[in-house]
């Protein structure tokens, strides 16, 4: 039986896997780093800040995001938004995600069917 630590690690791995899709979806509107973290949390996707902020920079270096520094409320903030390359990649990622969800549902249904027949 899996212990709590094992379960927690797997949950974190799964979240890391889908965070790119969530961030690209969210950044169709311009946001700064902390607001991305808050919006993800408000929508039920708790992400470690040590994962999110470096990821934003990595996605930018991969050309999927763009960023600009702006001074607001007497404080500089880096605003991120999806790039044209990111806009092209997003539907493909969403389709892939839907395929994964469908595949998992089929696997679960198959297992449930087998259990009922026994």
């Amino acid at each position, binding site marked *: 039986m899996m212990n709590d630590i094992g379960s927690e690690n797997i949950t974190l791995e799964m979240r890391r896997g889908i965070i790119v899709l969530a961030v690209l979806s969210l950044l169709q509107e311009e946001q*700064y*780093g*902390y*607001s991305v973290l*808050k919006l993800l949390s408000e929508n039920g996707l708790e992400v470690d*800040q*040590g*994962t999110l*902020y*470096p990821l934003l*920079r990595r996605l930018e270096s991969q050309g999927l995001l763009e960023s600009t*520094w702006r001074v607001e409320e007497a*404080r*500089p*903030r*880096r605003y991120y938004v999806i790039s044209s390359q990111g806009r092209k990649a997003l539907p493909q990622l969403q389709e892939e995600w839907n395929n994964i969800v469908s595949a998992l549902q089929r696997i679960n249904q198959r297992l449930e069917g087998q259990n009922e027949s026994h």
Partner: protein
Amino acid sequence: MSLIDTYIERVGENLPARDRADIQKEIRSILEDTLENRSQSAGRPVDDEMIAEVLREFGTPRKVAASYLPPRYLIGPRLYPTFILAARVILGIVALVGIITTSVALTQQPFTIESGIEFTLKRLLELLGSLLSVFGNLVFVFAIVEWALSQAKTENEDTWDPRSLSGEASRDIVKPWSQVPDIVLTLVALLIFNVFAQKFGAYFNDAAGQPVFVAALSPVFFTYLPWFNLIWVLSLGLNFALIRTGKWQPWSRWFQIALDTASIILLFVMVTGRSIVLDASDKLNQMGYTGQQIAGIFTGIGIGLKALFIVLIVVTGIELIQNLIRMFWKKGPEIL
């Protein structure tokens, strides 16, 4: 300086200079946003306790800096299995040779228990030094290969067609066993010239008919040895990398060409430079040898060594030309 300033400075100490200022600026902005939000939620102004709490949640400066950096390896997962294999084989051989030579020396010389223990301990310490030195050289070589591989262009996975394997020039394919003789010879050379070089020489009978050992290699030889060691160690690294990759690639051809060129230059310097044979004329003279006999001995050794170096230059030169042809004449004959 505030706690936030100190924290950001510490993060920066663990970041590469190129991105440091930008990442520090971003972390400061994120921290200020977090603190503002925390202050609104708590209904009190930002204080030292709140700052410490937020920084604790962010993590240690080293951890935060590491999250912004790609994984960095001295020897990465790609080369690590080969490194372990090479370390086991090479360290095993060095240890075995050390133990055998110590055992042979113990049986051949008249030792008391105390002197035998002292001799054995001394040899074991020497062996430990040799093992550490060999291990250090191996790490050095693999770190260079790791760096070279990280700089090399990786194959394009999307356009790679498995059917292209059948058309791949057979001369570029490296069978693991084909590198073994090279590896063994290089190891033997490293071992002989670094551990037993002082034992190179011959026994001459003195006037009383007793054999006396006369060392052969002069200090000049030992000025060349570090360069040969470098070439041999790099050559070992190349051989292990070839076994790992399974085929010759442009970078490995160029690496081999550079090693061959360096070897030829070094051998040429040895042929034309000062003699590597120790001048033992005085010692032989005292032992009763005539000037003519001594001149004959040294002339013979000198001619023999020069002939050996010239043969080595020719053999290495042929290998160099073959590699150059393979580099620039892609569709050249398979016999090369």
